[in-house]
């Protein structure tokens, strides 16, 4: 049986994700998404990945979702749409969800494929792992500037490319023709 905090945040995450999927108002969906991302960040904290939890809140729940909200308010009418509910696709979605959920429950709970070691237990063969799990941000810094230096540079360059791409994409097409 998992501990109370995990159950609380798992329920929060799943509830907020359901709000994202089910709400007919795009802004409400975005609010559900923010709550779900915060729930996942809390789960990162429970997994001792504090740095990633902070990063998740700052980058995802903060910057990315603000961008989403801006575009939603710019492009969609926030009023509830009056058109009929798409029953056909809703039935398909329900079927897919139950299929996947049943698969996840079977694979992770009943099939016994996942070893049930608690977080405190250290397998003997992994205790000499050079990149052992470090909770502090220092552990990230050391690995990012040694073993993962090239990926780090590529990620930085990717951000630059994305920046240039967004600027060129959002240029006014009317202005371009003139």
């Amino acid at each position: 049986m998992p501990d109370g905090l995990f159950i609380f945040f798992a329920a929060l995450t799943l509830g907020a994700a359901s709000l994202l999927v089910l709400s007919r108002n795009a802004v409400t969906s975005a609010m559900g998404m923010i709550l779900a991302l915060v729930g996942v960040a809390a789960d990162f904290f429970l997994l001792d990945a504090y740095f990633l939890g902070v990063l998740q809140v700052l980058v995802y729940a903060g910057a990315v979702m603000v961008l989403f909200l801006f575009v939603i308010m710019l492009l969609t009418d926030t009023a509830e749409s009056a058109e009929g509910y798409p029953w056909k696709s809703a039935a398909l979605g329900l079927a897919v969800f139950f299929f996947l959920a049943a698969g996840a429950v079977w694979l992770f709970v009943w099939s016994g494929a996942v070893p049930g070691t608690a977080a405190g237990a250290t397998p003997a063969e992994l205790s000499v792992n050079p990149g052992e799990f470090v909770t502090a941000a220092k552990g990230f810094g050391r690995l990012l500037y040694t073993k993962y230096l090239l990926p780090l540079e590529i990620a930085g360059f990717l951000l630059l490319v994305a920046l240039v791409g967004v600027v060129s994409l959002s240029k006014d097409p009317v202005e371009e023709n003139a």
Partner: protein
Amino acid sequence: MEHTTLAHHLLLAGLLFALGLTGVLVRRNLLVVYMCLELMLTAATLALVAFSRFNRTMDGAIFVFFIITVAAAEVAVGLALIVALYRRRGSVKSDELVTLRD
């Protein structure tokens, strides 16, 4: 923390992924579909962090760091594309963007 096992975290990630995929299939608003895609990505990162933690290795966590970076860039470009699409077609509903089908 003692009694929360790897299986619990994986189950949460699996259910989140299922919800995200359901949203991608059901929703018609492109922006909501995009948010559901992000939810699926987040579910995958949750599974990665869980595996990383329970195997006592740092590689999965570093992988998640890069995934967050790439996802931020991807969201910026994707939203710019959706805005450009709206300028051209005047809609972000996927059942109204059927030029290729008609």
